[in-house]
């Protein structure tokens, strides 16, 4: 019976095949519209340095000292401070565990490690720390033979000014994109629910024929509706998977075309598993509106 219903359901007017592709295409469009711009903005915000501190020659602020150390014929920037923990939290953006010698990720090589004899390698933070060695204040004084320079680090709040920067701009842009995403999402829910209701109404015409036939075959209504529910649910889930697939093919190919035609850099973030909460609600709302129309037309009426 399951196979029989599925066959009829997939071939009749307002059929499930159309429903499946409707969900897939709506979802793919939603995923494309939501992930592509936020992908660009996220990448930009990651690349934009955070201006959460300012550097000054004059105090007040946290003192940092810097000098160049000659390691195997190459000069490496060495940084230190009397208050190393606070200084690094300014430079890196958060507190990290430091040893006597901490090596920036971009200058990490066997020669440097051998020269200092010890030390841990820091994770990349996309600023000058990656290209420098952070030394404990005592060690810094022992190792640096050349005269070193002093700077003061201050937070922006301390400075009392709000600096319009690329980073604050990208943060605002990300908020704006998220806001647009919410509007698009609501519109999609409305349009998809209405479309699925219409499809449900259409398929109910065929279902009535099925019910008449199955009545002659002495099949219970509960069993038939269970089958319809299972088939619709499977179609919804298949639609979701196909939607992800379509978004993963169409969106990047369009972006590649844009790169070639308009020179826009190719930045693409594939729809990840976390976007499932957006999609699952959309899919189940469509399933609900589809089935509610089927039930209303075939049972209630």
């Amino acid at each position: 019976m399951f196979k029989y219903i599925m066959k009829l359901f997939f071939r009749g007017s307002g059929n499930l095949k159309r429903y499946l592709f409707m969900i897939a295409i709506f979802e793919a469009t939603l995923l494309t519209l939501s992930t592509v711009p936020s992908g660009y903005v996220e990448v930009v915000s990651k690349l934009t340095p955070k201006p959460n501190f300012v550097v000054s020659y004059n105090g007040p602020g946290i003192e940092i000292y810097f000098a160049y150390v000659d390691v195997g014929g190459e000069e490496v920037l060495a940084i230190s401070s009397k208050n190393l923990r606070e200084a690094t939290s300014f430079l890196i953006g958060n507190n990290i565990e430091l040893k006597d010698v901490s090596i920036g990720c971009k200058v990490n090589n066997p020669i440097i490690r051998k020269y200092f004899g010890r030390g841990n390698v820091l994770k990349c933070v996309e600023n000058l720390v990656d290209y420098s060695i952070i030394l404990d204040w005592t060690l810094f004084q022992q190792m640096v033979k050349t005269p070193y320079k002093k700077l003061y680090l201050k937070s922006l709040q301390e400075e009392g000014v709000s600096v319009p920067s690329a980073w604050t701009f990208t943060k605002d842009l990300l908020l704006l994109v998220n806001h647009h995403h919410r509007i698009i999402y609501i519109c999609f829910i409305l349009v998809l629910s209405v479309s699925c209701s219409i499809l449900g109404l259409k398929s109910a015409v065929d279902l009535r024929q099925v019910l008449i036939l199955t009545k002659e075959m002495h099949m219970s209504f509960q069993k038939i509706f269970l089958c319809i529910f299972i088939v619709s649910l499977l179609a919804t889930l298949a639609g979701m998977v196909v939607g992800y697939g379509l978004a993963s093919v169409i969106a990047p190919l369009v972006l590649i075309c844009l790169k070639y035609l308009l020179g826009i850099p190719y930045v693409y973030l594939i729809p990840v598993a976390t976007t499932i909460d957006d999609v699952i609600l959309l899919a189940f709302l469509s399933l609900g509106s589809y089935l509610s129309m089927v039930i209303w037309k075939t049972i209630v009426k």
Partner: protein
Amino acid sequence: MKALSIIMVLTVLMLLSPWLLNRAPYIGDSWVHLKKAEEIIKLGRFNSDEYNEMWPLINLIIAFSSIIGGANSLVSSQLIPLLVSLSVMNIYILANKISESPISGVAAGTALAFIPLYTFLTFGSAIMKETASFYLSTLIIAYLLSSKFSHICFALLSLGLIFGHHFGSLAVFLLMLTLFVEDFLELLAGESKQWFRTLADIILFGSFLFVWNLYVVSRIGWFSPVDLESLSMFSLIWTGSYAISRVGKIPSIMFQTLLIPLVFLAWRGHLHTIPTPVNPISIWEIINLLIFFIPTIIGLAMYWRKTLIRSLLASTSTMIVFSLVWSLDYEGLVVFTKSLHYYGVFLAIVFSLSACFIAKKRFGKVIVAMLLAFLVYASITGVSMALQGPGAYHEAEYIEMSSLSKISSEHIVMDTKLAYLAEYLNMSYSSIHRLKSGEYILLTKSDFTHGILLGYVWADISLYIPAGQITFCDKVFDGGYLKLLRVNNV
């Protein structure tokens, strides 16, 4: 049969042309496998310690043919391009079976070898794992359609392919998976006849593939592009490509109309961010592509309903789309180049399907013959460029390098092209970098004409050696092809 014989001879001649004209194998990988094969002959056993030994088919073919034929490994390595040219026969069988017209078969073979989308020689003439397994890949695809199918024979072919190359195996596995989904959907519609056979084949092939690659991973670790993120991306792209190919004829045609030009642009270096100098696309290249593109789309539209065509479309498009989406830098280029050969098989088949339609019209056979002759003619430029390109070796290069290896004990800087040869001759070398005084650098003719080869890409020589610096270098050796210089002015 006469036409098929002509195409076969042309393909063999084209693929053997690097050897016939330059008397040397094509593409640097050749030297790696020559060395491995010579080690097998010398030791009487094969090792499985590193990447180029994990898929031993090519090394064994060269070694066995050397032992049996008594020829040296350089000569017997040419069995690989010869095997690739036999793929034309498999493609002939496939197209013939789908269209039930031998004209299509001939057109498919011609389109495979003389495809205007890229130069087939750059793949078919190379002595690589991919090329050694290409014949088996196309044979298995043709065998899947055979009416006298035997599981034992299929298992043997599968083993050969799995020991041949991971990417070739992946291409066939993906096709079988798509065929299985097609059969399963037909089963749901109550129309399937052979879904169980497809399932049995897929389990057989899949288990061989899984076990062998698991062994490879245990020996050498994960190899690019196999990781969790790329596998999930690959699955999603397959779902999307399959959905597009399944929805209808129009979406499939639109998909290919977008994809074919993108592939062409990528092959010509207009999409990837690589240092290789990119030449503008000429009007002749566009005309060649259009002459191929229009019959291809007609063939697809006519035979879209055939399960094998839809499955080939979905599986080969998945590979090519994945390569583009995954990355548009050097790593993406490597995967793109590998995917292109399997996408080429699909395009050759759909192109050929329009030939039987054209042949039925008035003067149709003449038009088809002219079309095929045009494909051969249009590929001449690409072939001649490839024969002079940075991937082509010359006998003189080999001889000069051998002489150098005997007299020089210095650590020499060289590009990827010469590094392959140096590895073969057990020479000490380091890859090209910014030069320092006292270092020795070995340059070859193509370094000056095309640029220095850096893996799959090449860059202008001035990027590493500023113009004028060469004139201040000491010329230690100056052969017809190679120049050994000592840097002394940095």
